[in-house]
């Protein structure tokens, strides 16, 4: 077999915010790979840097932040070297994004057709009629009934679930190679979430589109993703194949996350929870950031652990794993 270039390869990505109170490293040494047609689940607690990772890939980090290190290889090309002009051509065309809150992502004063047509015509010189035809098809593709009429509607005339479908339709318009979906179903109820998950998965299979699905919900990852990347305080603490990681977590944080999912516990048993709170990025504990909440913490954890690679190809950032491996 010939070696194909992965769709996205993030290497040691670092993104910092230079606030008045000092520099904050929101994304710290993050690496992962997404192959063609694959789904990567990016999980972690609120504030762990998932969204910032997504925006870093698209070159849309808000002021006062910017990417300060690492590489973002998209089909072999390093996006960190891209100019704003090159990025403009890439966004919405090769890489598109869906946001968390469907109520806020569509401009309230512009009709759906306007917002869809502009997304096509920003990248291709096609007639309005042709763009409209493509918009109509995309709406049909994501399961919006009578797309012809819906094109003429304003966002407020749609429900939340419908708006998120519209957002997905917009993301699909230019047949991108990669879609970054930032908690797109968090604001929706469970049945609609399941529908959207199912349809997205199907679309990606059919078109070979890769997907980075950001979420804090492990059950979503279990059903959708091929690989998973667990983030904590800006760092990846564990990454690997979804079945390996979920069935046999190696990092104590992943273990804690899985323990706190209701369906995985026996009935009647209390849910386990991770003690303590997510540390503020301004004063992370020295050494391992998870140390103060970890039941296995030892003296070794005063030193920041490096990444170790297990035999199943999994990457874990923990001294215990490192030790266990060195004893083999």
């Amino acid at each position, binding site marked *: 077999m010939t070696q194909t270039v992965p769709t996205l390869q993030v290497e040691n990505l670092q993104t910092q915010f230079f606030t008045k109170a000092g520099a904050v490293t929101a994304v710290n040494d993050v690496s992962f790979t997404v192959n063609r047609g694959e789904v990567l689940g990016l999980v972690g607690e609120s504030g762990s840097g998932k969204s910032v990772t997504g925006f870093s890939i*698209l070159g*849309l980090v808000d002021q006062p932040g910017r990417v300060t290190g690492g590489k973002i290889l998209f089909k072999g090309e390093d996006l960190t070297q891209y100019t704003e002009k090159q990025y*403009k*051509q*890439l*966004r*919405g*065309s090769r890489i*598109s*994004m869906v*946001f968390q*809150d469907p109520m*806020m*992502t*569509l*401009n*309230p*004063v*512009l*009709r759906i057709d306007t*917002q869809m047509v*502009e*997304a096509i015509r*920003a*990248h291709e010189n096609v007639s309005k009629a042709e763009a409209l035809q493509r918009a109509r098809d995309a709406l049909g593709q994501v399961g919006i009934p009578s797309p012809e009429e819906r094109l003429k509607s*304003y966002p*407020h005339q749609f429900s939340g679930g419908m708006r998120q479908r519209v*957002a997905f339709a*917009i993301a699909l318009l230019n047949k991108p190679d990669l879609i970054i979906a930032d908690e797109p179903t968090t604001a929706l109820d469970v049945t609609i979430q399941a529908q959207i998950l199912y349809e997205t998965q199907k679309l990606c299979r059919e078109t070979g589109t890769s997907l980075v699905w950001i979420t804090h919900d492990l059950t979503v990852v279990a059903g959708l993703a091929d690989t998973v990347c667990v983030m904590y305080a800006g760092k990846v603490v564990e990454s690997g194949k979804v079945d390996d990681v979920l069935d046999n977590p190696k990092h104590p944080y992943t273990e804690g996350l899985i323990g706190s999912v209701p369906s995985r516990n026996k009935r009647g048993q209390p849910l386990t929870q991770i003690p303590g709170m997510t540390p503020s990025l301004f004063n992370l504990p020295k050494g391992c950031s998870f140390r103060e909440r970890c039941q296995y913490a030892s003296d070794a954890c005063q030193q920041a652990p490096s990444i170790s690679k297990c035999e199943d190809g999994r990457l874990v950032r923990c001294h215990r794993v490192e030790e266990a491996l060195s004893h083999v």
Partner: protein
Amino acid sequence: MLAFTIRRLSQSVVVLFVMSIIVFAGVYAIGNPVDILINPEADIAEQEETIRRLGLDKPIWTQYGLFLANALQGDLGNSFVHNLPALDIIFQRLPATLELAFLAVGLAVVFGVPLGMLAGLKPDSVVGRVIMTGSILGFSLPTFWVGLMLIMLFSVNMGWLPASGRGETVDLFGIPVSFLTLDGLSHLFLPAFNLALFKMSLVIRLARSGTREVLLQDYIKFARAKGVSDARIIGVHVLKNIMIPVVTVLGLELGSVIAFAVVTETVFAWPGIGKLLIDSISHLDRPVVVAYLLLTVTMFIVINFVVDILYSILDPRVRLGGAN
């Protein structure tokens, strides 16, 4: 839409009725026109004859009743001074004021919106700060003083623009207008700018705060994630959103622009209804003052109605008629 119009109309009738009582009583309190109108050397019989002719001998209730009965037939009385129907005199002067007011509002939008957006896009830049300082000045300097300074600078010192009058007019649909002749435009510019300054400052502030707020919205980031150009994001996505407050506020302020024209028209001797009002007050010409005030109230009502309709066009979330 129909229900909305009917409800608005009936509310307006009530407002006009209440206003007519207040205005009538107010004007009555200003002073007795007899003192000014009648030649003090005329004999008693002649004086009484005039008072009777003007209807000033009757008690105020009767006077008001007569006024109301005539007003319902579209007759607001004759001017004591010119002995012509008060409404005719006002309508004759109205085009000059409307021309001035619309140009002022136009200037306020054409300059205010881009300047405000610029200040909103670059709040910390030198340009942004200069614009905001300018708008503070526009807010706080008194209109008459700015008017006098404009005359000093552009008319007296530089001699570029004339300081008073309407200049050459041409008829447009039978109404004399200045803005179609070069001479008229040169007369129009200074007073219009003077009148526009306050509103321009208002528009700058609205546009700036609107822009800053809209830029933070997810839908702007989403538009950028779609690869839409900056020009389109600013010119369509941001502009369309900030025009909602700008149009609302300016529409509501159009009435006050016409009212404020009193000062500007006096400074620039612009022959509009503002100047007419001042002249009529000093002559105690009651019918003209009453007619002016009632007309202004009507104008406010019409403007509000139009603004509501415009608003519903600009903002698709607003539907006229309230809850349904």
